């Protein structure tokens, strides 16, 4: 019953096998369809109900009114826990999760992103963060 070197055969087999690991930054695996990455914001759909702000577990999202029926979303990528509850909560489907996940930054202020800020009102968010 007891065998020394039980794993010998398995170990030898593995020498001729392709490594199970991947060279990460060069080889990337496909993310699943339901992946919850960085958020996407469709400002034309937003009605400014701010339910997402209410439900966000980490207060990562802020909806600002920047004009008549125009809204922008400010997301703190470092606060966000990527649960995508806001996507579920939004009654108009103005938010969606993307597959983007490589969000590390060297400068902290870059983690605060303003989505859909291309409207005339220019907001400076740097310095606040």
């Amino acid at each position, binding site marked *: 019953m007891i065998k*020394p*070197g*039980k794993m010998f055969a398995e*170990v*030898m087999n*593995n020498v001729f096998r392709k*490594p199970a*690991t991947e060279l990460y930054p060069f080889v990337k695996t496909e993310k699943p369809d339901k992946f919850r990455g960085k958020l996407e914001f469709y400002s034309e759909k937003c009605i400014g109900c701010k339910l997402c702000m209410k439900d966000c577990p980490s207060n990562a999202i802020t909806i600002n009114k920047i004009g008549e029926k125009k809204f922008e979303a400010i997301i703190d990528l470092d606060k966000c826990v990527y649960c995508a509850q806001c996507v579920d909560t939004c009654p108009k489907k103005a938010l969606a999760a993307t597959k983007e996940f490589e969000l590390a930054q060297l400068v902290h202020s870059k983690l605060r992103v303003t989505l859909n800020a291309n409207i005339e009102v220019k907001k400076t968010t740097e310095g606040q963060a």
Partner: protein
Amino acid sequence: MIYTLFSILVFPGLLFLSIFGVIAEFIDRRLYARFQNRMGPPWFQPVADFIKLLAKEELIPEEADARMFKILPVFAVAAAVTAFLYIPLWNTASLFSFEGDIIVVLYLLTLPTLTFFLAGWYSTSLYAMIGAVRTLTQLFAYEVPLFMGILSPAILADSWSLEAITRFYGEHPWYALFNILGFAVSVIAIQGKLERIPFDIPEAETEVVGGAFTEYSGKFLALFRMAIDIEMVVCAALLAAVFLPFGLELHPVISFVIFIVKLLVIIFIMSLMRSIFARLRIDQMVNFCWKYLAPAALLQILISFILKGILVR
């Protein structure tokens, strides 16, 4: 004189050994990774590690004996390199040789282990001290089987000189087959000497952090690691010289290639052992060495004596 100096410092001495040690470490790590279905480090990883350690700050514990702390890594490297000079490599001639040098080589190979113990002891750290005590405990367990295993071919060859032993087996290569048991015993015991799984008890990181080297950093640690790499090559070369005496009388280049292949085979066996066993506990290790390894080595010696009576007339 110049040739001797060149031999000691460059080839096949210090420089060659250091480079080959680094290569051996890479091969060992790469094989270990492939056994585990991993990719393993790139070829320059051991060199990068070495350079990184050289660039790092050295911290010496306040309580430690600073002079001993600094000098011990140098001793370890020096002892390992010196041992190499007495071992015949790709032919039957070693750089220096005298009757009884096999004993000297074995003791020179014990020296690094002793420096590990002293390094741990002089670090005055708890983990280092436990690691040091374990190193010594383990030494008493594997050293006897190792000596008996390596010396048994010498009985058949009727000489205590490595040169004479290799010459003898070079003349009768098939006699080496009788030493298989001794080879097995020595390879296992050398796992203990090099502190590798299943006998890496002194530096079991989950128990005693870094073992005897817990307090070491910077270039001192780099030297210790270099010493272990060199020791691995020296041990492999010793095993090759004593147990695998093939292809010694050919053209030097071919012989050299065969020598390298022999070393790689031994390193392969050692990596394999590292990947298929779990680490033993110190009491189990001592038990194993005295219960199975030492009797096996004794049996090898007995075989050698009987064969000597039959074959060598």
